[in-house]
């Protein structure tokens, strides 16, 4: 079954236009003007936007700025300096550090020399760093400061290929042995001084850099096994950047804040790909701690953040508003309620009554505008979140304020873009339509496959993995299971493909998808879904003590422990309502309506890493749960309304004990499967 789904108009057109271009991987010629590499884009920008700012960095109290012409000079100086140090074509050069303009420039310098930049996560421990440096046989390392240099030196003897360390920040570096170590600026000076000799060599090297030469190599963090080096060509990066920039109408007037790890593909696309393609300005914060403040100062027009960032920000907003006076609080909640009603619709350009518009305009003066300002998002024209599912409440909060937050779905191997939400078609529960130039098909197992101009070249020194991920026709397996929503034509991601099972009747069983839906409710901390290979789904619920406890206090419900609160009938009622809402929404889902929760119970204890029920990163250990709570799972399946159980627990001081409880099992309302009816 090979289904290509591209229902939305835009997605359809994009795909069609793309297909008329012929074979994806080979026949596409470079875009206009021979702009077939990042160094060439730099040359164009220096020519056309010479006086416009290209990079900014908050340093020494102000936003130090460099124009495109200056950036070109810096990049070339470093490139020549690297040549003087003996950098060969096709060498790998690792870059380690936080977001700083000079480090971004160095990636372009490296490519100009025909070598390959390999940005590395700056928070990796020396061990991980050693693996990556060794795997790509990096000859040169460009490190930001003493801390990173120390990490490299720590594993130096395991890296026979390593020859030179170049550091940017001179602080504390004076007493180091400098026989194989140079300061970034000194290298640049070397390059400038040797300008007459080195310039021709650089020009020669630049000639060999083309659409199919490697632009960057990025190591995927990889949940299993060793990291893999994803080789991305100029074609991948430039095509992905070009189409996405056109999709969101990005231009030289935009501005972004680069604060996400440089080794992450998204940052490379935003801060180098799209930046060099469109010529917009990239600003780097003073330090990770001042990011919020710097965000507010810069006020970017194009912004990206993972869901946890938006979640944290929303919590901070709510906490601060708690301290406001009663009048202000009332005003805030009044206008936020109104925004919830019409804000999203206004943003989508849907009809809204005049009165509501006026009320929203007033709210914009009193609340939304100032709030956007305080969050540093007054000028955000396009905002994205991706990586994991975002809670609909959180997502809609930002949209109702008038911030055009959207979702996208992507991978390193795709040069980010697989699907993306077009303006006016934004939903909290989908990841959008195929990005321009991307073809998508859903495999028999529900796994999502794609191919596009952004599809990676190969995994470095790992032909096996390359082969198993990318087939000869260029289709890449994402490892994620998903389906296209028939109504909207948007892709919905369910879970990792290997975690998705089948119900007895053959319909999909996607526990994580359903659990996430439950966890979006503030009252629910954890949920565990059961039902693979059976005919009815059931669930364990952990309530969120802070949220439910708060609710209990406000409603004068006394309790002394988690267990007592969890067993309270009113709490059960509230949770049941949540479960039923989830069921209702699942019922609308043709693929997943089999996962509706028929029966549930609220666990008498919180799932705990100390008891081995979760990993330290708070992921549920399904196997352990299956064993430990077999009696409860059985009771959920057999239709009993009550179950008494005893569970062993580990206290914080390491002592063991046990708790017993009688748990009420509730039946939740399930809804007719709409797709079946159709």
């Amino acid at each position, binding site marked *: 079954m090979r289904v290509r789904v591209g229902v939305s108009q835009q997605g359809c057109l994009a795909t069609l236009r793309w297909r008329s271009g012929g074979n994806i991987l080979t026949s596409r010629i470079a875009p206009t003007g021979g702009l077939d590499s990042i160094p060439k884009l730099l040359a164009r920008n220096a020519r056309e936007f010479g006086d416009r700012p290209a990079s900014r960095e908050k340093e*020494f*109290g102000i936003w130090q700025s460099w124009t495109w012409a200056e950036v070109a000079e810096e990049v070339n100086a470093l490139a020549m300096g690297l040549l003087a140090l003996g950098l060969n074509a096709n060498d790998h050069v690792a870059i380690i550090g936080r977001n700083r303009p000079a480090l971004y420039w160095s990636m372009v310098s490296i490519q100009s020399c025909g070598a390959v930049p390999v940005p590395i996560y700056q928070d990796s421990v020396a061990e991980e760093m050693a693996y990556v440096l060794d795997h790509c046989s990096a000859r040169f390392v460009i490190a930001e400061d003493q801390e990173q240099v120390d990490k490299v030196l720590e594993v130096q003897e395991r890296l026979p290929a390593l020859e030179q360390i170049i550091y940017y920040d001179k602080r*504390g570096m*004076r*007493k180091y042995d400098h026989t194989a170590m140079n300061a970034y600026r000194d290298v640049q000076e070397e390059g400038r001084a040797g300008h007459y000799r080195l310039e021709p060599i650089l020009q020669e090297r630049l000639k060999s850099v083309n659409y199919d030469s490697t632009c960057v190599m990025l190591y995927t963090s990889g949940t299993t096994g060793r990291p893999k080096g994803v080789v991305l060509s100029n074609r991948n990066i430039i095509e992905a950047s070009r189409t996405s920039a056109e999709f969101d109408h990005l231009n030289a007037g935009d501005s972004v804040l680069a604060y996400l790890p440089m080794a992450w593909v998204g940052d490379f696309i935003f801060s180098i790909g799209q930046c060099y393609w469109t010529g917009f300005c990239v600003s780097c914060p003073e330090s990770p701690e001042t990011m919020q403040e710097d965000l507010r100062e810069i006020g970017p027009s194009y912004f990206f953040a993972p869901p946890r960032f938006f979640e944290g920000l929303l919590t901070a907003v709510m906490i601060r508003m708690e301290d406001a006076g009663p009048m202000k609080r009332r005003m805030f909640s009044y206008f936020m309620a109104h925004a919830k009603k019409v804000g999203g619709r206004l943003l989508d350009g849907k009809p809204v009554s005049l009165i509501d518009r006026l009320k929203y305009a007033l709210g914009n003066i009193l609340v939304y505008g100032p709030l956007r300002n305080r969050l540093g998002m007054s000028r955000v024209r396009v905002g994205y979140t991706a990586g994991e599912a975002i809670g609909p409440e959180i997502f809609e909060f930002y949209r109702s304020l008038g911030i055009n937050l959207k979702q996208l779905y992507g991978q390193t191997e795709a040069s980010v873009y697989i699907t993306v939400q077009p303006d006016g078609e934004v939903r909290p529960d989908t990841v959008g339509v195929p990005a321009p130039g991307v073809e998508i098909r859903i495999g028999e197992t529900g796994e999502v496959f794609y191919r596009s101009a952004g599809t990676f070249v190969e995994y470095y020194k790992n032909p096996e993995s390359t082969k198993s991920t990318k087939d000869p026709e260029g289709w890449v397996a994402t490892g994620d299971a998903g389906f296209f929503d028939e109504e909207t034509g948007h892709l919905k991601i369910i879970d990792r493909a290997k975690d998705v099972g089948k119900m007895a009747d053959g319909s999909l069983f996607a526990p994580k998808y359903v659990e996430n839906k439950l966890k979006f409710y503030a009252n629910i901390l954890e949920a565990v879904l059961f039902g693979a290979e059976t005919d009815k789904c059931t669930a364990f619920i952990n309530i969120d003590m802070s949220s439910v406890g708060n609710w209990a206090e406000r409603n004068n419900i006394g309790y002394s422990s988690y267990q007592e609160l969890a067993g309270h009938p009113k709490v059960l009622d509230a949770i049941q309502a949540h479960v039923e809402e989830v069921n209702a929404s699942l019922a609308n889902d043709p693929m997943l309506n089999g996962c509706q929760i028929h029966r549930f119970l609220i666990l008498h204890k919180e799932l705990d890493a100390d008891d081995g029920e979760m990993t330290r990163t708070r992921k549920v250990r399904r196997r352990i749960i299956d064993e430990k709570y077999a009696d409860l799972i059985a009771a959920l399946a057999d239709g009993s309304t009550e179950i008494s159980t005893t569970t062993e627990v580990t206290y914080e001081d390491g002592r063991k004990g046990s708790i017993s409880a009688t748990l009420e099992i509730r039946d939740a309302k399930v809804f007719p499967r709409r797709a079946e009816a159709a």
Partner: protein
Amino acid sequence: MSFDVGYTTADGRTIGGVLMEMKNITLRFGGVTAIKNISLDIREGEIRAIIGPNGAGKTSMLNVINGFYHPQEGEIIFRGEHRKRMRPYQAAKQGISRTFQNVALFSGMTTLDNIMAGRQLKMHKNFLWQMLRYGPALNEEIEHRRKVEEIIDFLEIQAIRKTPVGSLPYGLQKRVELARALAAEPSLLLLDEPMAGMNVEEKEDMSRFILDVNDEFGTTIALIEHDMGVVMDLADRVVVLDYGKKIADGTPNEVQKNQDVIDAYLGVA
């Protein structure tokens, strides 16, 4: 003990010749003698500690060095020049700057202004330009701001740049005070109990900064400190005072073994 042309420290730094020499200094207030016939030298590039119990005359010693007190007897030779009775601002002009036991920041000003204040002596543009805050005066202001920002960066106090210092926690105030003293680009930096009242973590930070200052700028540092552990880690040479008299002078190791010191100070500490 005396060195003619410097020495090499345990961690391999080369210490230069004598920067400041005090010979037979005696200081009296009315009938009280605060310092009795003390001689001591400070060498270029070294970290020199002055220790002793309360009331031993340590702070008076610093006050003599930077011209705040005028000793009745003895002479002071700074950079080979015999120093006459001088006012504190003249000492500042010669490149001596200091911090204080009880933080003496300008509490109504921001961190930035406090550190800018440290560059007072390096700014010269006249009243007329200052009135217009234009041209040379503004350029001078900007040029010095740039230098001050380097110090802010060095001491990692970016986040409090525009905070009035009065509202800062004590540890940070001490750091700002160090920044202000550094802003003068001193050739001799006097630190009066730089770590008093700090917690362990703050002490570690401050120690690191002091070492970094000495290392990066080659600044000669004379410091008073109570925490013996800190002194032993930081100082190249230590002088021990007791009741206004010098009872020992030497490397930390030598001083630690000195019986007089053990009796007077270490024993009770």
